[in-house]
């Protein structure tokens, strides 16, 4: 293969690249072949010594496609930025609404937990107080009324102890659930950040 044939072939293999890039590359290889010939190599040997055209084209295109994909990435990044700025009036209220909803959900979950414990406490306290009342009534109104009141109070105390365990478990699962909720919300935002 002559030098001209080699350069023509190379040109066609890298034709997808920008014109100035092709020109630079052709100059480089043309020089390399001439330098070899100057050293005394025959033209054909000099061309053969340069190596395979496919290999050369592959290296150049690889190098350039890395550059292109980086440029592309930058472009999409700036598109995201422009969208974020232009969409500001739209996404700010949306984000606020979203945040408020999350907060309300979170608060209501904890309110449920609080309410359930209040019920337990109410049963327990009423029970204890009723025991006292029962003892007093036992002396004031006789053993039947007093006994009944003490009985009811014991039932209440027992009830509060019985419902304590399932409520504890319920509260635990709700706390877990709210943690998961927070994590999910965080995930949504972090993922958005990565895209932007």
């Amino acid at each position, binding site marked *: 293969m002559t030098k001209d044939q080699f350069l023509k072939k190379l040109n066609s293999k890298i034709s997808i690249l920008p014109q100035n890039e092709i020109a630079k590359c052709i*100059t480089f290889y043309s020089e390399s072949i001439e*330098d070899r010939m100057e050293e005394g190599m025959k033209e054909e040997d000099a061309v053969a010594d340069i190596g395979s055209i496919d290999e*050369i084209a592959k290296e*150049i295109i690889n*190098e350039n496609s890395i550059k292109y994909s980086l440029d592309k990435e930058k472009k999409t990044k700036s598109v995201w930025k422009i969208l974020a700025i232009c969409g500001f009036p739209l996404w700010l209220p949306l984000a606020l609404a979203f945040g408020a909803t999350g907060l309300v959900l979170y608060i209501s979950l904890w309110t449920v937990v609080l309410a359930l414990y209040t019920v337990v406490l109410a049963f327990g306290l009423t029970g204890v107080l009723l025991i006292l009342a029962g003892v007093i009534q036992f002396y004031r109104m006789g053993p039947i009324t007093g006994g009944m009141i003490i009985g009811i109070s014991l039932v209440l105390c027992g009830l509060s102890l019985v419902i304590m365990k399932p409520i504890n478990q319920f509260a635990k699962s709700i706390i877990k659930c709210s943690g998961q909720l927070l994590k999910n919300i965080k995930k949504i935002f972090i993922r958005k950040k990565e895209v932007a």
Partner: protein
Amino acid sequence: MDIQLRRGLLEICVLKVLTKGDSYGYRIVKDVSKYILISESTLYPILKRLEKNNCLKVYTEEHNSRLRKYYKITNIGLEKIEDFLKEWDEVLKVYQFIKENDND
């Protein structure tokens, strides 16, 4: 050898060759080839990258009634060699450590 490592080493070799004077494509290939395998197809992207990172400057000069591109190392390029040597002091320490353990 790992491709990334090889590429990094080649960059420094090219810079080192240029510390001995401005040079051109074919001569760089010949000089570097004494130490590590290199061809024009690998050298070309390396020169491009080094130029983009301001590690070297390109100028054209007439030679035997034709034009030839010469590459000249810049201060940034010299710093890059220094950084490489410093970095490899650390790599060598780790290498020694790994080798010692191997002999146990």
